[in-house]
């Protein structure tokens, strides 16, 4: 085992003190001179023709500086397939459609002005379920596609198919088959800090936008397109990212409100701020995509999985964002969680007049895992096998290539399963708690752990800049949104470079100063930036050692002479102080440069800062800045074959729950929870635990209580009174987290991504435990007490 100085320690994160003091600056806290406040008027219908917009009264309101609509602003096409516009013309397709916006000198005037805007609509028939949307003669959400070609159905033109082997044949040969239909609801990310931005133009027509995003560089690209659309072709956008109050996928795309702020800022020549209030956060951001899944799995008589067929329908909502690409990640567990040779996967994505969807932590994986892992328990039961043994028999193994072409490098799947079984005391408990309505259940996960090539580039840049005092600025395109990215990057940088972490400052969130990064998503931040940091650190060390080769011995001599001055008894050793060393002779550790051969000689040590000063306090000096661009060895999925090694490495995990069900009220009580994750290598034990705990609790909410409820496209619970996430008293059970280190060869110091996985297998683990406790299977999330009661009733 390699001995590390900082990797694997449990240390506070660098941003914690400012956050604890209330000093961290979120978008809500930013005020610019002359700033105006923007407010958006949303649709009053799920589907309607806009007949007339009367903004005259709003325009006359004192304090209003601009009122805009789709009719007096240039057309900007946005979204993954450009089927959306920031301000709607002709038609609204969902309640959150933006029809007008104002900028005013204070937020209250802006709000009042929005209320004065009158819109005349002609209501149109609407569709609210994929099923209805696919019926013959259903109202069409988009009559034309983004290029203006007529469209006659509600299918989103993004289809996902994957076939391996022969599922039909496997069905005929299978000894046991389990089939089921599973549903997942809309889930709201529920960031504590709502979304918002401030847009401002300089006098050259360049835009600066301070905004809540996970993808500053892709956003720059989007906004530059918008600039071109408003007649500012060739002008540039600078995106800066303030402290983020959580993100969980909300910042993966650019949003209507950002473009509206840009349009208002352009029109008024003033900075314009739009921050969503909590209700707007619920009703106008994109929640997690709901799914309907039909699954069939089969195995041979020994219990070896032989087939998996999954057909899925996703409610896209009215426009297309990254939610429509979540099947690319769903394909991973569907093709590759457990070893299964024959796989068929098909996903249809359907336009409706519901709110359009996005990705949330897990990017489709929580929906896929729900169907897979619940159905797997059903299959184990049919095969007469214990679900743990069944999983062990089919578990993933290291150095394997899956039917989708995923190259598994390190793999701790079996270790995760065993850990959970041991911790839960599985053998003693499984199947033995019916009389007390107690049960145990488990579920696994398979996810990208080495980024995911969703775009042509999956890269990230790092700049390391060292100053005269041995401080290191690590400048990254990645984003800290609460997950601990800065902490992981600081530790990796310190370890790789040979400085102490307190010397490292991570600088991020500015497209003008930071190197390019595709975005902080797919659990990729620490993995990609960590690898880039190791590369940049190596380059910096080369430079440092080159300088040291000339200056190390003279520097040592100088220091010894100084010592002699102070202490006349001291004898300066007889060494060749003019020797030019070879750069390869040096090592740098914890801010000190020394000779590898004599690491313990206290006389032959020079602090890094002295060497750094030697670099440029001289004629013909130089400075120590290094850069690196890391693009992981992975592939985009071939849309025709559905194959491609999406990630450089993969992560595994297993969750286990012990539950007790109140048969009279249907309430589920979690008695204990175990989460075992193959993380490759722990970088910061404190932040990795934080990621797993946090993901897990979001997963428990997803399992038991969270649901974004709608009625004919309108959200019914746009606040925390009605949309319930866990509070501290709900976490009233022991939790055990185990990080299994498999030391991945692709990962920075062996680490794999860990941001999303904590959420993924929670719901099926709980559902499987409930089944063990009371013998009923709930197939649609959330598992509410009333669903349990009605299932119990049916069973009798």
């Amino acid at each position, binding site marked *: 085992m390699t001995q590390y100085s900082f990797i694997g320690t449990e240390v*506070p*994160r660098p*941003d*914690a*003190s*400012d*956050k*604890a*003091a*209330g*000093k*961290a*600056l*979120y978008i*809500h*806290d930013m005020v610019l001179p002359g700033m105006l406040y923007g407010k958006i008027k949303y649709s009053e219908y799920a589907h309607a023709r806009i007949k007339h917009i009367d903004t005259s009264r709003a325009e006359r309101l004192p304090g209003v500086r601009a009122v805009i609509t789709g009719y007096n602003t240039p057309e900007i096409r946005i979204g993954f397939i450009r089927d959306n516009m920031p301000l709607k013309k002709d038609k609204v397709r969902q309640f959150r459609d933006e029809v007008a916006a104002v900028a005013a000198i204070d937020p209250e005037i802006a709000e009042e002005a929005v209320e004065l805007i009158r819109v005349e609509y002609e209501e149109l028939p609407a569709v609210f379920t994929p099923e209805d949307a696919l019926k013959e003669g259903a109202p069409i959400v988009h009559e034309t596609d983004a290029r203006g070609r007529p469209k006659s159905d509600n299918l989103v033109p993004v289809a996902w198919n994957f076939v391996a082997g022969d599922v039909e044949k496997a069905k005929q040969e299978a000894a046991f088959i389990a089939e089921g239909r599973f549903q997942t609801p809309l889930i709201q*990310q*529920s*960031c*504590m*800090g*709502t979304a918002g931005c401030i847009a401002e133009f300089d006098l050259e027509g360049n835009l600066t936008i301070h905004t809540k995003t996970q993808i500053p560089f892709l956003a720059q690209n989007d906004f530059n397109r918008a600039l071109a659309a408003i007649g500012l072709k060739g002008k540039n956008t600078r995106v800066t990212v303030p*402290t*983020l*109050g*959580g*993100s*969980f996928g909300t910042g993966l795309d650019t949003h209507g409100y950002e473009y509206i702020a840009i349009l208002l800022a352009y029109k008024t020549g003033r900075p314009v701020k739009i921050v969503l*209030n*909590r209700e707007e956060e619920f009703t106008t951001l994109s929640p997690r995509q709901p799914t309907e899944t039909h699954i069939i799995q089969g195995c041979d008589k020994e219990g070896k999985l032989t087939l998996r067929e999954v057909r899925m329908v996703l409610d896209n909502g009215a426009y297309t964002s990254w939610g429509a690409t979540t099947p690319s990640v769903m394909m991973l567990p569907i093709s590759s969680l457990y070893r299964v040779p024959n796989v068929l996967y098909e996903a249809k994505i359907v336009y409706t007049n519901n709110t359009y969807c996005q990705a949330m932590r897990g990017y489709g994986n929580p929906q896929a895992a729900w169907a897979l892992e619940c159905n797997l328990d059903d299959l184990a039961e049919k095969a007469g096998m214990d679900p743990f043994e069944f999983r062990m028999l089919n578990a993933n193994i290291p150095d394997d290539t899956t039917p989708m072409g995923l190259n598994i490098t390190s793999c701790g799947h079996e270790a995760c399963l065993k850990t959970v079984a041991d911790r839960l005391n599985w053998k003693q408990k499984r199947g033995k708690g019916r009389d007390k309505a107690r049960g145990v259940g488990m579920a696994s996960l398979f996810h990208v752990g080495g980024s995911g090539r969703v775009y042509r580039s999956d890269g990230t840049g790092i700049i390391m800049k060292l100053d005269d005092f041995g401080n290191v600025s690590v400048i990254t395109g990645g984003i800290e*949104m*609460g*997950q*601990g990215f800065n902490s992981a990057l600081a530790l990796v940088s310190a370890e790789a470079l040979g400085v102490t972490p307190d010397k490292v400052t991570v600088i991020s969130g500015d497209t003008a100063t930071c190197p390019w990064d595709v975005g902080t998503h797919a659990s990729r931040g620490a993995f990609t930036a960590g690898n880039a940091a190791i590369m940049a650190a190596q380059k910096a060390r080369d430079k440092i050692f080159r300088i040291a080769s000339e200056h190390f011995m003279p520097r040592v001599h100088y220091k010894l002479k100084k010592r002699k001055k102070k202490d006349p008894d001291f004898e300066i050793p007889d060494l060749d102080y003019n020797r030019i060393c070879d750069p390869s002779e040096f090592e740098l550790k914890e801010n000190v440069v020394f000779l590898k051969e004599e690491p313990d000689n206290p006389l032959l040590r020079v602090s890094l800062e002295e060497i750094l000063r030697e670099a440029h306090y001289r004629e013909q000096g130089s400075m120590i800045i290094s850069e690196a661009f890391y693009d992981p060895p992975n592939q985009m999925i071939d849309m025709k074959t559905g194959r491609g090694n999406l990630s450089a490495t993969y992560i595994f995990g297993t969750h286990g729950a012990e539950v007790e069900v109140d048969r009279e009220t249907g309430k589920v009580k979690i008695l204990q929870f175990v989460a075992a994750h193959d993380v490759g290598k722990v970088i910061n034990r*404190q*932040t990795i*635990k*934080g990621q797993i*705990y*946090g*993901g*897990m*609790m*979001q997963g428990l909410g997803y399992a038991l209580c969270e649901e974004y409820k709608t009625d004919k496209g309108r959200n019914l619970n746009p*606040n*925390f*009174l009605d949309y319930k*996430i*866990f*509070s*501290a*008293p709900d*976490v*009233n059970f022991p*939790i055990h987290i185990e990080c299994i280190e498999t030391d991945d060869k692709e990962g920075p110091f062996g680490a794999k991504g860990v941001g999303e996985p904590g959420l993924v297998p929670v719901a099926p683990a709980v559902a499987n435990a409930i089944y063990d406790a009371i013998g009923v299977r709930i197939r649609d999330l959330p598992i509410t007490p009333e669903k349990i009661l009605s299932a119990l009733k049916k069973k009798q």
Partner: protein
Amino acid sequence: MKKLIRFTLNGHEVSAEVESHRMLLEVLRNTFHLTGTKEGCGQGECGACTVLVDGLSVDSCLYPAFEVEGKSVTTIEGLVEEGSRLHPIQEAFVEHGGIQCGFCTPGMIMSTKALLDENPHPTDDEIKRGISGNLCRCTGYVQIVESIRKAAEKY
């Protein structure tokens, strides 16, 4: 309707001309520029705006500013001592992973202060009840509870 209100803010006597429909949160953030107190929901559900009024935790988003007349208000900024030294509760949150995105943190810490001032040695259940009015989406509360437990040891 407007009125000059006087109160003690983080130990200092202050006054401000305030409109009658304003909540304490708006006065803290907009008049006194104390932006450490956050608005998470505006409806008393999330606790991000928690401050202490005469030592009791309240949601400042629902606290009419007029009611603060003559009272003593403590915000997160009021806990930081001379020389930017963090309060022991803040320190415990930093040390023990009680902070991720940080948006709930000021409110969470103010609720903790109210809890520990009244009950310096709470049980885990009492801790959880004490912060039950503060939502956090990042941490799952585990490390927050641990932070508070550690803070209590030094209290």
